[in-house]
């Protein structure tokens, strides 16, 4: 065992390169042909299938599974991608137990749903491996649309618009496309640079130009885009991170979970990535789980998630929570941080137990401390730097119907807009639906006005 493994403080190289490679391999390896065939045979081809209703992008699940079962997986992939151009990523990251698989009648019947996500991956991986892009553009319309943000929402919108023959320019602040697919999703969910491969494959449709290093509010303005383009779609996600508002938050080694995950995702050599020995993650969502699990996989000895409400209120799915505990992460509920102690760097974090009463969440006098040389905040992201004049609601861009904002000619979707569930798949659905609405508007088919 290497010495670094038990070193105190935030240090790199707790595990060997081999151990890290093993820890960060595909968490759910793809089905092979035989496994896919067996899994596909379990689908009942339900009428008005409940799994389809539960899918935010309404993929025709019984149809694509039947296409796999009958030996035409490429046709299955087309069925999936027609509804959801990020079918490949969604197959890897969707919390299926809360979505399609949770609604599957075989979940009701046997507690074992049809493996919809895994089958979706089987079909889409097969088609993408062939380098085939199954869609072609319609006759060019000469119309131009600006999209802000190259995350799932922006790219889904852009792809659908390009398909309809419009020309799309995407303005992206970062140097790589993909949004949180590239910078946020846990690495073991999308191995082998899948996020970039998928975007490259998506762009094969043509008619989409991505301009990197273009930040709305800094390099470009909404008014500028409105003047130059026939329509604008905003898909910039949530750039800001909520603060703990606990004493001592500014100590060293207290950082945002999303930054830690971003660094991890972008690291080319995980042996150089520092991680603490005693890591505490504050939050109860997917981000908290991902940060905690990945800290463990990097070699942290003790990792604890502390969530301020009851476990049933955690927004991370049951499956995610189980994944965390199976990875050796401890989950403490009903406790909120009140102070971070330490001399320069954080050393300990103090919590108060909470009670969820009629008056909301209250801190009790019961306190406890956890050893912590690294603390991750994962208590939610928030919208940052929205352009002037856009109506907001609940901290997000207010939208009506398929993503129409308060400003005519401007649509929004994904995490930045109201209505989604902060999931990749809902972002894709909103981007796609906004594109359909924009297309209807541009081709003069729209009924009511925005």
């Amino acid at each position: 065992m290497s010495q670094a493994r038990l070193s105190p403080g935030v240090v790199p190289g707790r595990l060997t390169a081999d151990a890290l490679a093993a820890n960060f391999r595909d968490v759910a390896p793809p089905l092979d042909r035989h496994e896919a065939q067996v899994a596909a045979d379990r689908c009942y081809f339900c009428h008005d299938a409940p799994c389809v209703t539960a899918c935010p992008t309404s993929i025709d699940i019984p149809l694509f599974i039947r296409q796999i079962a009958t030996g035409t997986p490429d046709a299955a992939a087309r069925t999936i991608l027609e509804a959801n151009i990020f079918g490949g990523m969604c197959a890897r990251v969707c919390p299926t137990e809360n979505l399609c698989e949770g609604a599957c009648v075989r979940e009701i019947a046997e507690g074992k749903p049809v493996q919809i996500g895994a089958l979706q991956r089987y079909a889409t991986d097969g088609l993408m491996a062939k380098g085939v892009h199954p869609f072609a553009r319609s006759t060019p319309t000469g119309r131009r649309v600006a999209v802000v943000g190259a995350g799932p929402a922006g790219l889904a919108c852009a792809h659908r618009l390009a398909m309809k023959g419009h020309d799309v320019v995407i303005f992206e602040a970062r140097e790589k496309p993909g949004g949180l697919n590239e910078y946020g999703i846990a690495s073991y969910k999308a191995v082998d640079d899948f996020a970039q491969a998928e975007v490259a494959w998506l762009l094969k449709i043509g008619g989409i130009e991505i301009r990197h290093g273009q930040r709305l509010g800094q390099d470009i303005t909404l008014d500028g885009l409105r003047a130059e383009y026939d329509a604008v779609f905003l898909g910039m996600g949530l750039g800001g991170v909520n603060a703990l508002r606990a004493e001592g938050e500014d100590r060293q080694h207290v950082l945002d979970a999303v930054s830690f995950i971003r660094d991890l995702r972008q690291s080319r050599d995980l042996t150089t990535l520092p991680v603490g020995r005693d890591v505490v993650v504050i939050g109860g969502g997917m981000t908290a789980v991902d940060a905690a699990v990945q800290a463990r996989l990097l070699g942290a000895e003790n990792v604890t998630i502390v969530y301020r409400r009851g476990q049933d209120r955690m927004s991370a799915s049951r499956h995610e929570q189980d994944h965390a505990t199976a990875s050796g992460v401890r989950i403490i509920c009903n406790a909120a941080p009140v102070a971070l102690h330490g001399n320069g760097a954080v050393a300990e974090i103090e919590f108060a137990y909470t009670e969820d009463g009629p008056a909301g969440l209250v801190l009790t006098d019961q306190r406890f401390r956890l050893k912590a040389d690294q603390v991750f905040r994962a208590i939610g992201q928030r919208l940052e730097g929205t352009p002037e004049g856009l109506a907001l609601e609940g901290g997000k861009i207010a939208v009506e119907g398929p993503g129409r904002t308060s400003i005519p000619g401007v649509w929004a979707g994904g995490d930045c807009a109201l209505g989604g569930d902060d999931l990749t798949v809902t972002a894709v659905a909103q981007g796609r639906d906004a594109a359909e609405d924009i297309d209807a508007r541009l081709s003069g088919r729209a009924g009511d006005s925005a």
Partner: protein
Amino acid sequence: MADLRSTFIGIKSPNPFWLASAPPTDKEYNVRRAYEAGWGGVVWKTLGSEGPPVVNVNGPRYGVIHGADRRVLGINNIELITDRPLEVNLREIKSVKRDYPDRALVISLMVPCDEESWRDILHRIEDTEADGVELNFGCPHGMAERGMGSAVGQVPEYIEMVTRWVKKHSRMPCIVKLTPNITDVRKPAEAARRGGADAVSLINTINSITSVDLDLFAPQPTIDGKGSHGGYCGPAVKPIALNMVAEIARNPATAGLPISGIGGVTTWRDAAEFMALGAGNVQVCTAAMTYGFKVVQEMISGLSDYLDGHDMTLPDLIGRAVPNVCDWQDLNLNYVTKAVIDQDACIGCGRCYAACEDTSHQAIAMKPGRVFEVIEEECVACNLCVDVCPVENCITMRELEIGEIDKRTGIPRGTYANWTTHPNNPMARAAE
């Protein structure tokens, strides 16, 4: 444990499960292992005449139909009779029979359609101590082109003639194996009885092409780019075989003629069904070819439990359903049932709805929350929903009481009345 000992046309076996004449019974090695596994008897793979044996193809000889999870539903074959020398087979038969005197061993035969050939082969097998012979008039491919197998089985006069020869030149019990590749199975069975057969066995395989290679554009199994029709067997043919067995069992001209039931027997239940329709025993091929000899153990325990559970003996079972096989015109048109969905068992798949709505009588309502309910006013009791529901016994058929109003017709359920007296029947006899 029920007593499963069986006596079929005087041939005794510890249970009524025999292996049919086919690859499982092609040689001593197999038959010994089959007996060890528990099979009550075997019909040895069909022997031909003295001389150079037939040759089989050297490419694939089977095709298949799969159900979900690649479950074998039907197999098709283009194999011929045994391709091993006659002397070898005879020596092996003798040796096996000597070591397993309590098991049935019947020899299947197929030789050219002349009296001399049959006399010769019967003499050759005489000292094997085998219990009987089965005449293979069923093989639908290859041998039929040479005037044997189903080429004989399709002409009742030939069946009668050959059976007569066999009875004349041998004292062994004689089973005539029938081909299903005919229009009316009663005719060959009647011919066999006229010729003096002790029993008939059926069915042999059904002419079939299982699949087509869509790259080679040739039937499968494909031999160097070509395919020939083969013989279909396995679970898929059971319904056809059951009907043919029942037709012979209830035909006055063949009533009482012992029947050995063959065709898709895979479980104890299949066997029990054949026997209820008049088969004195059953023969099995595909189930053994799919799962190995061990399947007989489930057949033995299952049939035994069933008989014990129903307080029946094996002879009580044989033919017990025959009196209930009737013509359509004798069915009670006043028997009214309605589909009932057990809401607790329902998993909400909607297959019953799709089936009834699209292809039946629009008698299932889909309500909010994926609740499926039968509309009795529309239900004709066709049973389609029951058949397509993935959950066993989730949908059942409730029989209306006599006098209870059928909500579809508004007419109270009456007592027995069939088509022969129905007012819509132009040929109706006066209802009296």
